[in-house]
């Protein structure tokens, strides 16, 4: 399924259940983000672009994969927008696009034998390209 423009944003909102309309552009999410410098687009831009209806660039960019899911942005957000859930939604959409989500072996840094299998598989699905 080709997902672009408004439809993409609607899908992201649906998956993330995030109320992006509440964002007041304070940037506290980005200020809290440990991966800020790695990212092409920053957490507040995820919220801003999704709310403005044009987030195709986010799908192209690998910013979503720079997120380490520490959830600090969601914790600190004064408006309850939860940018981490938006990022996660992009990863899910990407994973769906690659219907047979094979994981790239070079990313298997997570395989330390401690993590439960299911978590591992789902993590690979999302974090591998």
């Amino acid at each position, binding site marked *: 399924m080709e997902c672009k423009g408004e439809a993409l944003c609607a899908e992201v909102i649906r998956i993330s259940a995030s109320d992006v309309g509440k964002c007041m552009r304070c940037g*506290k999410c980005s*200020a809290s983000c440990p991966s800020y410098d790695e990212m092409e687009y*920053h957490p507040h831009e995820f919220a801003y672009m999704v709310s403005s209806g044009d987030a195709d660039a986010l799908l192209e960019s690998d910013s979503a994969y720079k997120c380490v899911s520490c959830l600090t942005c969601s914790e600190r957000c*004064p408006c309850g927008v939860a940018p981490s859930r938006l990022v996660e939604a992009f990863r899910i959409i990407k994973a769906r696009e690659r219907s047979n989500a094979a994981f790239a072996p070079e990313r298997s840094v997570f395989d330390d034998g401690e993590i439960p299998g299911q978590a591992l598989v789902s993590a690979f699905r999302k974090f591998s390209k």
Partner: protein
Amino acid sequence: MFVCHCGTNIAGTVDVEAVADAMKSESGVVYSATYQYMCSQSGQDIIKKAIRDYELGGIVVCSCSPRMHEATFRKAASSVGMNPYMVEIANIREQCSWVHKNREDATSKAITLARAAVAKLKLNFPLTPGESGVTKRALVIGGGIAGIQTALDIADAGYKVDIVEKSPTIGGKMAQLDKTFPTLDCAACILTPKMVDAAQNENIRIFSYSEVESVSGYVGNFTVTVKKKARYVKEDVCTGCGLCTEKCPRKKIPSEFNLGMDNRSAVYIPFAQAVPKVAVIDSEHCMMLKENKCGVCSKVCTAGAIDYTQKDEYIEEKYGAIVVATGYEPISLERFGEYARGMSPDVITSLEFERLTSAAGPTHGKLVRPSDKMKPNTVVFVQCVGSRCEPSLGKGKEYCSKICCMYTAKHAMLTKEKYPDAEVYVFYIDVRTPGKNFDEFYRRAAEEYGVKYIKGMVGKITPDGERLNVSASDLICRKKLEIKADLVVLAAAIEPSPTARALATKLASSMDTNGFFTEAHPKLRPVESPTAGVFLSGACQGPRDIPETVAQAGAAAAKVIGLLSKERLTANPCVAVCDEEMCSGCSVCGNVCPYGAITYVEKEFRVPGGRTKARRVASVNEAVCQGCGCCAVACMSGAMELKGFMSSQIMAEVDAICRTSR
């Protein structure tokens, strides 16, 4: 029966002639007519003439909403001798012609509405408003700038005013401020003269270190009990020399006035310009009061003002009006762990900053880091801490605290003034500067003083050795910032005084979800509370700055003066009334009354056998009752009724509107 065309507003959709015709055959209707604009002078003349010519007992006007012209028609009717409460309005504009398109439907609904009004009118009876006297004395609760200004204005008009202040001195938050925006003049210089004025004004009494214990009564006739807390110092004897505070052996008590940044003794005067300038003994820390050991202050006091046996004192006084001026408090920042508040003494609130820069403050006006008393080279200001937060997250307040943008600009400027070489950052979401000379002030900070305004919130502050690591992002440059700061100032949101809720309950006054007092109308009655005779002044109603507070204080004072200048008050006649024959005195009505308007009395009633029997019955204070009708519904027997909205009248309306479907 008068049917208004309202130009084409009504007549466009409703066949007004048909309505008037239909009403002619309605029983009880003797006259029915239409007119272009009933509310116009000539329309009113038609009404007046018909009332006289037909000796009408009551009239129904089919027109716009009663919220619009009920008063107009009532006035017209009473000008020709009809009781104004014998006028009923059938709303055939807002609730008929404007919302329905089909002419036939709208006309038949208009007829139904007119019938309902007639049905109600038939059961109306003339109502006369009750009257009560006015006690010519006002009470101001809270002795900050709002309370002081209100009291001064009322006193100036020649009425007696009492100020009740919970702390040992009046002055409030403004006394703690250093400079004021946008003029940068000294807060103390403009406040302390007012404090002295208040103390010296013969119409003003100040109950400091006191609280409102209970309130009863109603507009014009409140009875208030004030609890004067024991200060263990005779107020009228103490000269305020301060010798006792010097000699007191307990000196390591964090000072409230300086927000814990320095210490005071167990017997203390809050600050040099305190009014009344009288010492107070802190019973929690005084060794004499706690362990009966010490007594130094009593020994050194030459005036003999110390009295360890003093007890709380209760004073009862009557008032005609009450002004609430309980002000605000900064919120607690304990839920904002990311800002290292509590982890480093160099993360301070804006109010603490005020004390740090104040010449009367703990550092005597020297702006230094609290931790090492060194000059700060990099100062970071963070705005909106706890303001504009999603309330369901439970961290901060939903609203904008309004004053932070301006005082932060002021603080940044003051920092730059003291240390021109310092780096000063202000992190903001939006800068809001509506107000006279406000934006100019902010621009000056940025342009003239070189304060760096950065759009974006601070994410985290971590103590890093002696300094503070501030992580933020500059949203405009799309750049991550890591600043090593020496001092961080958090612009904490402000919230209503924690004592306000209990007070609101005593006053039967309502509060909004944030705990601010609700005004009677947000636009038209901004300084009155919904409870008659209770007025609002200052930040107890919502965040506001000093100029606004003073303006509102004056407005509240004007309202109070207007009230106190009346000899008698007339009340809304649509109040509850109790049929004592039917009342069984069960107290249900009293339990639901939000105004405490219902009391119970024993009355003698005749019983079979020529005897009488005393029975408890409800009695409504018409001056207090606001006419909500809650009691009338709670009353099982129907003894309690609401004049103007009697059960029989409402049921007659119900019957009329259910009568036909067309």
